[in-house]
């Protein structure tokens, strides 16, 4: 039986996967997640989400969503939906782990 892996939840604590690091490439003027044999270019919003929600010092995802809600002065439900979708995508692509 196959089971679909659930979405990232607000109670999850996320960190970058082994071998993944946040880097700024000055030459290209881009932030990226550098990873084994690949990389992911982050736009401004993706960078803000990674900074707010990923890392051992962050706490759970809910705390990151709270911060982003204040920072962007947006409805929390909308912020949460966007953040969880993006973090699930990053988790499924192996850039972050719980």
């Amino acid at each position, binding site marked *: 039986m196959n089971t*679909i892996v659930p979405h990232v939840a607000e109670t999850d604590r996320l960190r970058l996967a*082994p071998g993944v690091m946040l*880097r700024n490439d000055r030459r290209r003027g881009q932030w990226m997640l550098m990873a084994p044999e690949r990389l992911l270019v982050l736009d401004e919003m993706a960078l803000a989400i990674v900074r707010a929600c990923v890392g051992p010092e962050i706490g759970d995802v809910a705390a990151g969503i709270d911060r982003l809600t204040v920072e962007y002065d947006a409805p929390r439900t909308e912020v949460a939906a966007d953040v969880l979708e993006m973090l699930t*995508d990053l988790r*499924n*692509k192996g850039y972050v782990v719980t």
Partner: protein
Amino acid sequence: MSCALPAFAAATRNDPAPPFAVLMELTHRCPLRCPYCSNPVALDSASAELDTATWKRVLDEAADAGALQVHFSGGEPCVRKDLEELVAHATEIGLYSNLITSAVLLDRPRLERLQRAGLQHVQISLQDAEAAGADRVGGFKGGHVKKLEVARAVVAQGLALTINAVLHRHNIDRVNDVIDLAMDLGAGRIEIANVQYYGWALANRAALMPSREQLLAMDAAVRARLPELAGRIVVDYVVPDYYARRPKSCMGGWARRFMNVTPRGRVLPCHAAETIPGMAFETVHDRSLSDIWRDGQAFTRYRGTDWMPEPCQSCDHKEEDWGGCRCQALALTGSADATDPVCELSPAHADVAVLRNHDAAALDSVWTYRGA
């Protein structure tokens, strides 16, 4: 929100965006003798290999050219005693280091030294899910057990681990076992890599080609598992060329993302490019990697889409697959300029099926091990 590599598309033929990574084949020496080795049939000797100082200069030039990652590869890169020194140098100049290895020469102390030097990621090849078959393919007794031991050490140390599982007639039926093994080892990523027929593999094609039934069973097994694997292990699944209907985007497009430096210092757009006749390759002794990347003859020849014949030229997919693979076009049609015949739009596509069916039926064909 975010996407992979959008800003890395080659701008024009002679004014390309910088490369993403440089593959450094430090040596062709290897204790394993896999019959599908991607190294050229004519191997560079140890005495021809670049020395430490030259490799460091090449690393500097890779960073100058804008590369972000270096893949230390081979042959078996761990035969080089200066591997730690080269990784440390790469780290110092801001390059992300990947080690592509058979793992049989690695142990915990050396892994620790490499990690201290800044290594981020280790890719270990497995020849099968079980020792007898794996050691027979690798031609190296005890290799499989050693690989598993090193793979566990890689994970225990907190380094990223990729398992590279090369599939062919003799192990393709165990694809599920290979995936299970990779997960048990704690790999973050698995490459399910059906043999690509270049170099030694091309010479051994009749001994390696799986049957259509094997292929379909493997494909169904992998696709059925992908949903449950999401978020647990990253799967890079290379569909076997000879059974495909569309060509792969080989190297992400010729001279768009990667450069390759051979043990003796030749600078190539891909590791099999030396098979293409009439192509002039520069070496690290001739010009800098930046210069070679920008307008080296071998790099500009198939960069972008200008070179493409029909049916590629008017195809909607031409900036997705970049015309497929030049070396495969050469191997199968005799011309590197041709549409990759893996594509069903190629006039030579039917020939691929004939070759494939012929080789898949050659069940008593015996492979030749890679030379030393």
